[in-house]
C-alpha cells in the first residue's frame, strides 16, 4: 500500500455524485466511507471537506437532502441524486473518461512507437 493521496480539487464532486448514483440515498458519513473503500483505502478523505461539497451540490440542484433513519437506527441526513444530478453524473463521467484516456496516451508513448 503506497502513500495515501489527498483528494484532488474538483474530483470530489464527481466521486460524491457517482457514489450516490450507485448506492442510492446515503448520509454524509456513509458517502465518505464508501469513497474511501472504493478507492481501496488509497484516498485520505478529510471528512470535514465533504459537507461544504455536499451543500454546494445541493445549492446547484444536483442532489437533495432529507432527514431519515440510518441502518443503526440513528437520525441522519440522507442525500440523493435529482434528475439534474443523474444527467450530471453521466456527462461528467464521460468527460472524465475522455480526459484520462487522452492523458494515458501521453503517458504511455512507447506502445505507439
Amino acid at each position: 500500500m503506497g502513500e495515501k493521496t489527498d483528494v484532488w480539487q474538483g474530483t470530489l464532486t464527481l466521486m460524491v455524485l457517482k457514489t450516490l448514483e450507485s448506492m442510492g440515498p446515503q448520509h454524509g458519513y456513509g458517502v465518505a466511507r464508501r469513497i474511501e473503500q472504493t478507492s481501496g483505502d488509497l484516498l485520505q478523505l478529510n471528512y470535514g471537506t465533504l459537507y461544504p461539497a455536499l451543500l454546494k451540490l445541493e445549492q446547484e440542484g444536483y442532489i437533495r437532502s432529507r432527514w431519515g433513519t440510518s441502518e443503526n437506527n440513528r437520525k441522519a441526513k440522507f442525500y440523493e441524486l435529482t434528475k439534474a444530478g443523474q444527467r450530471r453524473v453521466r456527462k461528467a463521467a464521460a468527460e472524465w473518461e475522455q480526459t484520462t484516456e487522452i492523458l494515458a496516451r501521453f503517458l504511455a508513448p512507447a506502445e505507439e512507437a
Partner: protein
Amino acid sequence: MRRLRALWMRFRGLCQGQQADNDFAAEVKSHVAMHTEDGIRAGLSLDEARRQALVRLGGVEQVRQAYRERRTLPLIESLVSDAGYGLRGLLRSPGFTAVAVLTLALGIGATSTVFTVADAALLRSWPASEPQRMVRIVASTPQGADYSFSYPDAVDLAAQSRTLEGIIAYARYAATIHSGSESQALLDEVVSPNYFSLLGTDPGLGRRFAAAAQSGQPCVVIGNAVWQRFFGSDPELVGKQILLSGRNYTVVGIAPRGFRGMTAFIPAELWFPITARYGASERGFRGFELVGRLRPEFTPAQAQAELEATGQRLAQAYPAVDKGRTVTVISERQRLREAATPTAMLMGAVGIVLLICCANVAGLILARGDARRKEIAMRLALGATRFRIVRQLLTESMLLALIGAGLGLIVAVELFRLQSALMPPAKFSLGLDLHLNAAAILFTIAVSMLAVILCGLLPAIQATKMSCAPALKSDERGGPPRRFTLRGSLVVAEIAMAATLLTASGLVVKSFLVSLKMNLGFDREKHLVFFDLGPGYDLARSAAYFQQAETSAAALPGVRHAALAQRMLLSDFGGGAEKRVSIPGIELPQGQTTIPVKFNAVDSGYFQTVGTHLLDGREFTMADGPHTARVAIVSRTMAERYWPASTAIGRQIVVDGKPCQVVGVAEDAKIIQPHEALEAYIYLPFAQWPRGEASLILESEQDGRPVIAAMRNVLQTMDRNAPLDVRTVDYLMQQAFWEDRITAAFVGILGLLVIFFGALGLYGVISFAVNRRRREIGIRMALGAERNDVVRMVLREGMAFAAIGSVIGLIASLLTMRVLSSVLYGVKPTDPLAFAGSVAVVISVSLIACWIPARRAASIDPMQALRTE
C-alpha cells in the same frame, strides 16, 4: 445557470440564520456518533474512537465555519455587520455625523443640480423619436450664424431634398387664453403642418394636425398642462372651439404630457399652424427656425452638401433676400460636441465645490480616526487584517455618503423648485424642465461613490498604518505636530476664497441697496398701474377706445390721475423703438443725416401721472391734437447735447421727416433698465402719433388692487374680447432689478457656503491638533497653565489660519474686484465697508469654529491625560 441558482440559494441562506446552523450541528453530531460506533466496533475504546472521529472530521468548529461560509455569502454578511457597526458608531458621535452628512448632502446636492441643469439646458436632445436623426439648419452669413429662415425658403429646401424626410419650421409667439373672468398669456409656437408628424412622438396627433392645418381653418394643439389647468382635463375637448387672443380656434389635439416644444428654456403651451398671418408666404420675413429629419440611409455630411447646393440656387433665384447666405447643417453629434465645453466648465466648477466638501469630510474622518487609534490597534492585535479594517472604515464612509446622497437628492429637488423664484418676473413661466431622471440619480450615486473614495480611503489607510504595540500602550499621537500640512493649506485656501467671495457679495449687496434708491426719472413711490391695451381696431376706432378708457379710468374712485403712453416704463417690450431724427442747424457725427432716437408717445396727463419732472417749457395739452402743429418734449441729455449754450425751447427737430417744435425739456428717465447710460430721448404727443396699442397708466391713491378690479370691469364692458394685461409699478421694479437681486443673492449664498466650508475645515484641523496634543496640554495644565491659557493657545493656532486666509483673500479681492466695477452701482470696488465686513465675518466665523475644540482642550483633565501613559 447552475451558478446563478447556487448564488440565489446562498442569498436565501443569509436569511435562514439560526435554524440552518442547528440543522448542520445535528448532522455533524450524527456523523461523529456513527463514526465513533464504527470505531468501537473495530475494537477501540469509546474515548479513542471518538477522538479519531473528531480528528478525521478536522475539528467541529472548523467544519461548521467552512460549511457556514459555503451556505451564505460571507462578503455580504460581513458587509451587513460592518454597516450595523458603522451605524452604531455614527450614532454615538451625532455631531460628527451631522456635520459630515450635511456637508456631503450640500456637495452632492449641488453637483446633482448642476448636472440636471446642464442636462436639461445643454445635453437633452430634441423632443422627438430617434432624436439623433434630427439636424438643425442654419445659415452662415458674413455677420455670423443666423438661425432664422423665411417659410418659403424652408419649403423650397425641404422640397428639393432627398436626404431629409422633411423640415420643421417653428417660431415663438405669445397668445392670451381667456377662462372665466381671468385671462392669461401663454407662450406658443407657430409651426409647419408636419411638426408633430416629423417629431414622431404621437403619430395620431401628427396626422390630425397636418390635416387640420391643410384645411386652413383656425386650429390649435394645446399643451397637457393647459388642458388640465384651464379645461379640467375635459376628455371631450378635442373638436371643440376655444377662445384665444379674441379669436376662436378648433382644438385638434392635446400635446403629450411633458412636451414643451423646441426650446429648452422657453416652454410652449400652444401650437398653431403657420398661416399667412405669420408671414407664411413672405420670402423676406425670416421669422422661423428650422430643424430637419435625416432619412436613415443618409449622413449629416450628405445632407450638408445637398442643402448647401439648394441654398446657392435660392441665393441666385432671390438675390434681394438670400444673397450671401450659405445653408449649413448642425448634426446632433455636432450639437453635443458644442455643448461639451460649457457642460465641462459647469461640472468643473461644481466639482471643485464637491472636492472641498470631500476634503473637509476627510479631515473630519481623519480627526475621528485619530481618536479611535486604540480601538483600531486593539482589533489589529486581535487578528483582524488591515484590509478588513480598511474595508470596515470604508463601509462607514459609504454609509455617510449614502445618507449624504439621499439628502443631496432632496436638496437638489428643493433647488429645482427655486428655479421659478430665480426666473425673471414675466407674464410667462420660463425655465428648464428640471426633474430627477434616471441619469441624474445614477450620476448622484456615482458622485457619492467618488465621495466615499475621496473621503474615506486616505483616512482609513492612515488610521491602520501603525504597529499595534506602541499604539495600544500610549495615547501618544505620533510625531510632532506639523503646521503646514496639505489640509492646513487647503483650509487657508478655503478661508481666502471665502474672504474674496464675501467681499464681492458685500459690494454687490451694497450696490443693490444703493441702486434701489437711484433716481429713475419717475416716482416709483406712486401706486402706478399699467394696462396694456390692444383692441385690434383701426387707428381711429382705437383712439376713441383709448380716450373712453382713459376718461372712465379717471372717473373711478381712488384714481388720482390717468394717462396714455405708447410704451410702459422700464420695460424691454418695445422700449427700443426709435424715430429717425434730424436737427436743422446741427451737424450730426460722421456725416449722418438722421440719428436714431428712442421715444415715447404720451398724452397730456403723462408727466403728472408718473411723476417725471419738467425742467423747462410746458407739458403737452389737450390742444396738441392731430390737426395742430407738431410739438415734442426732449430729455435733458438731448437738450444739453444739442443746445448746450442756450435753451432748447422753440427749436425745430425733424422726426421721421416731420418738423416738430420743442416745447419742453424733461428730466432724464431710465428707458429699458436701471443701469443703462443716459441717452437722448424724445416725447411726442400720442394724438399726433397714434398707434393701435397703448399703455393706460393709472395712479391710484392707495394699493392698486381695487382699482385694477374696477378697471378690468370697465374694459370688459367696453369690449369683452379685447386682450388686456395688467402690471403694477412694483412688478416693473422687480423685473427691472431682477438681475441685481439675483446677482446679490447668488454671490451672497456662494460666499456663505464657502465660509461654512472654511469654518468646517478649520474646525477639523484644530480638533485634530487638539487631539494630538492632549498629553502636552495635560502637562501644561499640570505645570500651572490656566484653562484660559489653553483656550488662548488653541485659538491662537486657529486664528493664524484665519488671519493668513483673510489677508490672502483681501489681496485677491483688491486684485479682482475691478472685474465687478461694471455691475456695481454707486459703490467703488475698493469700498472699505465691504472689505471690513468680509474680514469681520471671516474672523467671527473662524472664532466659533476654533472655540469648540478650544473649549474641549481646556476641559482636559490633566490627571487623566497623563495617567493614560
